[in-house]
């Protein structure tokens, strides 16, 4: 019976490793300049965690196999040094692993969070609200109009609470339900939550960042492939959470300029 358990343990380890080793579930195509670092980090994590998992299962199975069917009356043997040493060893091993992953991942993290966007990056404000995203472009004057919560009038498309009657900066602001960006040009996203916590997740862009009410967060990225990608909310935000999505439309530079002109005319 003990030997059967050892076989089951090995079978579980091998079966769970199989889809990962054979790349059964591939990551969606990466369309960002920083994504390679995240993909390699995911790869390294899977490798390290996978090897440790399979290794640990095999060692466990080996112990089960060799110490099963103990003869009645034979002396009990314990690990040299007792449980204390085993627990210490586990702490050191797991600690080293976590630390190593952190050090290795530091580059991927820093590229997104610790470097400033390029000076020519396009600033786009992203506002998350129950249950939609709206994006704002500063328009020809490159200045965003101030936000006045009391002026918010969703029925009349004033999602940001702009005051064009009194503020010139707000008059040329472009508000869109779709995030339109030019290809191969850096974008700085200024993230703003209108009500509760939300999240901004684009798989292909390898970006997942929470919106935090009261905090204006900044994120920068460069999309490298023209196309339409889904933006979804991955932070449970209320009853309409399942339907909170938008699209990112990556366009050629010319199409992007054309789109801006079209929007400004409306």
């Amino acid at each position, binding site marked *: 019976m003990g030997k059967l358990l050892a076989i089951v343990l090995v079978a579980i380890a091998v079966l769970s490793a199989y889809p990962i080793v054979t790349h059964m579930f591939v990551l969606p195509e990466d369309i960002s300049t920083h994504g390679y670092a995240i993909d390699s980090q995911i790869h390294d994590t899977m490798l390290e965690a996978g090897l440790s998992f399979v290794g640990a299962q095999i060692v466990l199975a080996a112990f089960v196999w060799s110490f099963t069917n103990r003869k009645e009356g034979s002396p009990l043997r314990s690990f040299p040094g007792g449980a204390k040493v085993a627990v210490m060893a586990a702490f050191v091993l797991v600690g080293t692993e976590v630390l190593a992953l952190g050090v290795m991942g530091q580059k991927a993290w820093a590229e997104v969070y610790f470097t400033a966007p390029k000076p020519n990056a396009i600033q786009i404000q992203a506002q998350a*609200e129950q249950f939609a995203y709206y994006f704002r472009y500063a328009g020809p004057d490159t200045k965003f109009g101030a936000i006045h919560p009391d002026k918010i009038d969703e*029925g*009349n498309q004033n*999602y940001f609470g702009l005051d064009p*009657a009194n503020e010139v900066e707000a008059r040329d602001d472009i*508000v869109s339900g779709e995030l339109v960006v030019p290809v191969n040009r850096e974008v700085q996203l200024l993230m703003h939550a209108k009500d509760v916590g939300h999240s901004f997740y684009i798989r292909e862009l390898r970006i997942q960042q929470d919106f935090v009410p009261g905090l204006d967060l900044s994120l920068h990225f460069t999309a490298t492939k023209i196309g339409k990608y889904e933006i979804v909310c991955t932070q449970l935000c209320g*009853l*309409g959470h399942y339907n909170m999505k*938008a699209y990112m439309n990556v366009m050629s530079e010319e199409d992007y300029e054309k789109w801006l002109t079209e929007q400004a005319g*409306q």
Partner: protein
Amino acid sequence: MGRKQFVVAGLAMLVLAATSKAGPPAGGTVSGKVTYEGTPAKMKPIDMSKEPSCAKMYPTPPVAETVVAGSGNSLGNVVVYISAGAPDEAAPSTAAVFNQKGCRYIPHVLVFQVNQELKIQNEDQTSHNIHPLPKINREWNKSQPPGTPPISEKYDKAEIFPVKCNVHPWMHGNFAVLKNSHFAITGDSGAFTLPNLPPGKYTVTAWHESYGDQSQEVTISGREAKTVNFVFKAKPY
């Protein structure tokens, strides 16, 4: 009059009596036009990119209906009603229908009476969450997945208030719950007619969702037709 003619006339009277509405006796009429002065805000196209099943229903994006301006400065979507002078009336037995189609509210402004049945239906392929925002009536919000039966509701106090969809921020409409049946809603032409007003002194009120309301006094004696016009001040932003 011969016997035959008498019978025909009698039948005709019976038919007339059966078909004419058992409402107030025919009386005076108040009619007029609602216009604006100044420049109204330019209505922006509605961005429905979040909901592709709705967006694809429009060859070009529809524009917001907050201000519906017609030719000659006429103003649509204005509720004109008798706010004082007319007795309260029992609700009609027919339901007022509020439809959700193409991620928009049809009609944009729905007028119905106190305690009249309100039927809300969803013709879209997506879920809606209807959320009327009354101040004195009871507030509720209800989710309505596609293909589900209409929601039936009623309001027991007269009030005009906005309606929104909790899932689609651009969806915005209005409910006008009134005490009597003397009301009209202007179309693009801005024209309205309030017929069958018995003699008396009335307050005629015109309400617009972003320009507020205005009232005028009018006295009806007999079967006269009076003209009352309303002019709202439009704001460019």
